[in-house]
């Protein structure tokens, strides 16, 4: 009797553990598959030209320098603007709002924003900014990306803050710490890894966004320089990849693959570096 039960439990256990092993294998398999195609298509004929030359027409040995620059600028602005807002918002939800109606509303609205098609966010920013400024601009592109960053960071921040045990907060409160101080030096600190993950997910999310930039950053075949550059149409890597991938020329296809490899490698490096920092701190 007992032996049958034990055997069944052991078999169930093994079956599910093997299934979970297979799940991990599937996940890793996809990653390997996608990365290997990216590398074989992008690394073949890869040249440092893409960092020095700007986008040109087919057959002119163009590069991606202006697109890389534009993407870096707009992504940085979007993350630097969007992340603090998202963290503050997530903090409100997790620390002050909790079960209030207002928090429920904000949470709901945020989750809907999270899944809004990015082209509609681009459209919204276009309506608000572009006709008023009279032209497309890097600022408008960054604004559209920031609107995408915020809900991602809010969601992860709240999730992570809610995971911080209440006993920590209570212990700090018992020492007489004011609430804002508890949040800043106890809960944020405890949830730091998760919050960084949120910011990374946000960068990952916007690094490949094409649709919201179409009517905001618009794209630019040339360089933009200095502060004035932010106020004029700005190139971005995903936009260039998109246009090149749908062009008839093999050399532009090649450039699209190289750009795709580049974005992916950048995000990859970024997350590994961030992880490294996290592991060093604790």
């Amino acid at each position, binding site marked *: 009797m007992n032996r049958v039960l034990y055997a069944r439990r052991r078999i169930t256990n093994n079956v599910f553990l093997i299934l979970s092993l297979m799940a991990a294998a599937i996940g890793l398999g996809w990653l390997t598959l996608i990365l290997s195609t990216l590398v074989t298509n992008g690394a073949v004929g890869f040249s440092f030209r893409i960092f020095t030359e700007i986008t*040109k*027409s*087919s057959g*002119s040995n163009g590069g991606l320098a202006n697109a890389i620059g534009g993407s870096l600028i707009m992504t940085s*602005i979007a993350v*630097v*603007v969007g*992340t*603090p*807002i998202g*963290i*503050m918002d997530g903090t409100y939800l997790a620390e002050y709002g909790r079960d209030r109606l207002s928090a429920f509303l904000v949470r709901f609205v945020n989750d809907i924003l999270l899944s809004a098609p990015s082209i509609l966010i681009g459209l919204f920013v276009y309506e608000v900014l*572009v*006709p008023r400024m*009279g*032209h*497309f601009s890097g*600022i408008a592109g960054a604004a559209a990306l920031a609107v995408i960053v915020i809900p991602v960071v809010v969601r992860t921040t709240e999730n992570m803050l809610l995971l911080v045990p209440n006993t920590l907060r209570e212990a700090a409160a018992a020492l007489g710490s004011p609430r804002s101080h508890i949040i*800043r*030096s106890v809960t*944020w*600190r405890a949830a730091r890894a998760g919050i960084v993950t949120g910011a990374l997910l946000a960068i990952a999310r916007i690094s490949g966004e094409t649709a919201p930039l*179409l*009517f905001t950053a*618009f*794209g*630019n*075949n*040339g360089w933009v320089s200095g*502060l*004035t550059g*932010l*106020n*004029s*149409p700005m190139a971005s890597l995903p936009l260039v990849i998109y*246009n090149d*991938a*749908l*062009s*008839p*020329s*093999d050399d532009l296809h090649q450039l699209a693959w190289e750009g795709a490899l580049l974005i992916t490698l950048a995000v990859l490096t970024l997350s590994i570096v961030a992880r490294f920092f996290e592991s060093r701190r604790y």
Partner: protein
Amino acid sequence: MKPFTNRLLGLAAGIAVACAATSALAVDLTGAGATFPYPIYSKWAEAYKAKTGVGLNYQPIGSGGGIAQIKAKTVTFGASDKPLLPGDLQAAGLTQFPTVIGGVVPVVNIPGVKAGELVLDGKTLADICLGNIKYWDDAAVKKLNPGVNLPHLAVVGVHRSDGSGTNFIFTAYLSKKSPQWASQVGADTAVEWPTGIGAKGNEGVAESVKQASGSLGYVEYAYAKANHIAFVRMINHDGVAVEPTAEAFKAASARTDWAHAPGFFVVLTDQPGHDAWPIAGATFILVYKNPADPKAQKEALQFFKWAYENGDALAEANDYVPLPQSTKDAIFKSWQTNIVPASQP
């Protein structure tokens, strides 16, 4: 941990300063619209910049986008593969002119059928796209191809899923040749396809046709050439089976009376001429008659004037057909009569 709020405020201040510092901006020559002429516009822009130092930023956001953006006055010029009707131009205060001509080519993937081997006419092509002809060995197809060994293979229609100027040219042709197509589907940059599968962009259609056995699609000439897919010879208005070549596209526009077409509204499908390719089309530029920024528009028109005068060789090298001299003269004349003097090139 330093409060995020401080950094946030600092950043906001920085951006405000940046905006203020950049409010005075030099003339910016920006155009947007059709994807079809993007390769040649970017070639012209590079050559023009090398010569004059004036840069042009053209972004292929789509014909609809081009029309919407010129109406919103966010660009110096808009570009569209589908010409606006003279009435629409009038209402918006716009004027339009053609730049180059290109062709749309039906492509097939039938085992054993080589490039240029299959011949179709407009009616049969429409029947295939309508789903009336379901197999390649249909009597109507056989009749046009007596020597070709056609297998009993289901036809898989592949069409552009996204709206496009290619769609407009193709469906305009089918509408001319098939009353059923005209009444049931019509001609536009996007239509309700009766059958088949959709693919994204010319590239997507070319890819799908290469992969699906028995498929029929249509792509711009440059894509058919670049992807080495089997093109179809079409029977033209004069009843001659022609191959898609730059000469055949040129022949399609040879007898067009651009000068007397209001707003240059001409659809180049099914044109008369012994060598004329029947599915050709021009692509258009839209500018204001009385622009908000006359200086920028002047720069833009100077660019196109330069392109008309010096860009023919580049256009031909990239599989586009330049306009005949008479048309170019008509365009220059239309600028003089329609556009304010401050913007004359």
